[in-house]
């Protein structure tokens, strides 16, 4: 198996699906000649041509609306929003149009929106967001957020093949910092299924995206220094949420830490906490704890950004507090 970076895994998945199905096409700002702001689609224009790799105008409503319309007539568009933050300009298209087509008319909308998201790259307030919670609240959309190259490739392929609109949150900080083994052959990762990235018996950490890696480091440290066994559950898919996997893990460990990079209030962690409180309350040996970015916009200052974001040390502290119960 080849070892590739997270972004290379996304690229491979896109490439294979483009080869596999001629109704798949890419559109977005600077994805063709420029190769994408993060170079995810470098080389695509030469290979697939300008009919299928389309540099769009800088207009997110037009991009997402055109993608939705094309999906209505059987195309499989993959739209890149250059930075996930910019999706705000096309919000209406996703939540009112794409998300409700099938509900209203029983017509599938097989489209994917790629959303490079996340902080930790000193992008400041408008280039660091984790906007998944805005869409988590909208029935009709599916949301995925891979943390590893394996999941990144498997999920982009599943997203493209899914008949529903799928929002694909790819974390910018992982692009070139995370490598992993990825099979050369055709495989998919099922949307709606989480993954136990590390088994453990004492505390469950439910997490996704870049925070998975911090949780894994924290779990190693706790094992070594405290002898506490921490399970790390990577949601991978935010909608649908793998409720059974979450509940099974908490029923086993009796303690839950939820960690995500999005800020705490109104974040997806709140829904996970409610789920566990409602259906596994009697299994809990300690209060549910949550870790996330603090409730402010994302600061540019690298020093403050570090303070703002969750990290290994914060997760370690929270785990130790839970272990003490």
């Amino acid at each position, binding site marked *: 198996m080849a070892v590739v970076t997270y972004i290379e895994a996304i690229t491979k998945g896109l490439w294979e699906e483009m080869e596999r199905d001629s109704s798949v096409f890419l559109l977005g700002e600077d994805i063709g000649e420029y190769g994408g702001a993060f170079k995810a689609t470098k080389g695509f224009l030469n290979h697939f041509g300008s009919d299928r790799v389309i540099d769009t*105008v800088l*207009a997110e*409503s*037009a991009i997402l*609306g055109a993608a939705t*319309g094309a999906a*209505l007539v059987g195309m499989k568009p993959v739209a890149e929003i250059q930075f996930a933050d910019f999706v705000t300009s096309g919000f209406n298209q996703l939540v009112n149009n794409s998300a409700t087509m*099938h509900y209203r008319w029983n*017509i599938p909308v097989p489209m994917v929106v790629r959303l490079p998201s996340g902080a930790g790259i000193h992008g400041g307030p408008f280039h660091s967001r984790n906007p998944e919670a805005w869409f988590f609240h909208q029935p*009709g959309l599916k949301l995925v957020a891979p943390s590893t190259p394996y999941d990144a490739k498997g999920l982009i392929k599943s997203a493209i093949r899914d008949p529903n609109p799928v929002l694909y949150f790819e974390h910018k900080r992982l692009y070139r910092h995370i490598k992993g083994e990825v099979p050369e052959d055709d495989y998919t990762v099922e949307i709606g299924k989480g993954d136990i990235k590390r088994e453990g018996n004492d505390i469950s950490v439910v997490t996704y995206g870049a925070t998975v890696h911090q949780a894994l480091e924290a779990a190693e440290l706790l094992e070594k220094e405290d002898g506490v066994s921490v399970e790390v559950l990577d949601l991978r898919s935010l909608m649908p949420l793998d409720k059974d996997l979450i509940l099974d893990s908490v029923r086993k460990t009796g303690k839950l830490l939820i960690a995500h990079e999005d800020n705490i209030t109104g974040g997806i962690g709140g829904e996970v906490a409610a789920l566990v409180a409602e259906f596994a309350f009697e299994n809990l040996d300690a209060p549910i704890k949550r870790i996330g970015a603090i409730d402010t916009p994302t600061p540019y200052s690298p020093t403050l950004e570090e303070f703002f974001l969750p990290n290994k040390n914060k997760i370690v502290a929270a785990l130790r507090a839970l272990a003490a119960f």
Partner: protein
Amino acid sequence: MATATLKKESKEEKSHRWKELGLSNAKVIDLYRQMLLIRRFEERSAQEYGKSKIGGFCHLYIGQEAVGVGAIAALRDDDYIFSAYRDHGHALARGMDPKGIMAELFGKFTGCSKGMGGSMHMFDASRGFMGGYGIVGGHVPLASGTAFGSKYLGKDSVTVCFFGEAAANQGVFHETLNLAALWKLPVVFICENNRFGMGTAVERSTAVWDIYHKASAYDMTRQWIDGMDVLEMYRVVKQAVDRARKSNEPTMLEARTYRFRGHSMSDPIHGHYRTKEEVEEQKRSDPILVFGHELLEAGILAQKTIDEMELEIKRIVAESVEFAERSPEPPADFLYENVYV
């Protein structure tokens, strides 16, 4: 601003104008019939709304019938249509079953959207009727998507997108026109300028009152049409559709029209934003009345035929109401059925 007025043409010229368009007598009589069906269907809808059989929001097309009927008559069966929130007329003009439309208004399971949408959500993919949409201007970019799909798939279907003059102030309208011009998409944008975005007159909402001029920013072929004249609508839309089909050239049309009823069912026909006199004056251009006269004078339609047509339409509309009345409510478990594929 120049509002739609009657063409001052001689009787002789008028009696020949559909021939020049290649339309048979039977076809123009059918256009008249379609407008009449829309009018009577919606008058009945208003009554049913008054009886609380129809709830929520309901926007009537009364006064604007010539726009939809003339434009849609210029399309092929494999063309696509997007409508906005005033969509009953477009749906009927596209040949959708009045029963399914009335049942949707009643919120019944037999409605064309199974009662999940209501007045603003008529839809029939089998007729290329890609729906009504309730967010002003929000549907406009979808038209560029279907047009792109047609071009990509090598089909020569054309997409027509209806919207009001208020929608032309939305940013996404401009984004889409730019995209359509840049990508050379087979799409025709039809702005139905009925002069009021709800209660705000175009002069109070829009810096450029001639809406079609907005397309000049994208170097797009553009013109205004007398939207009270069904044959003018047919003639100009046909040209635009042919151009789109042949050379993938988009067009922006502004149909100048007028709505005779309130914005929705909850506001009066006239009042604070327009006078009774203005509405009465505009009603002299009633597209059905004027076209009916033209056909009568040309001798291809008799009053007796109109009377028979009225009776037949009355029956069709009554049957649609009976159908809606009899139809079941959507079952509660259907709520979850179509959220995802």
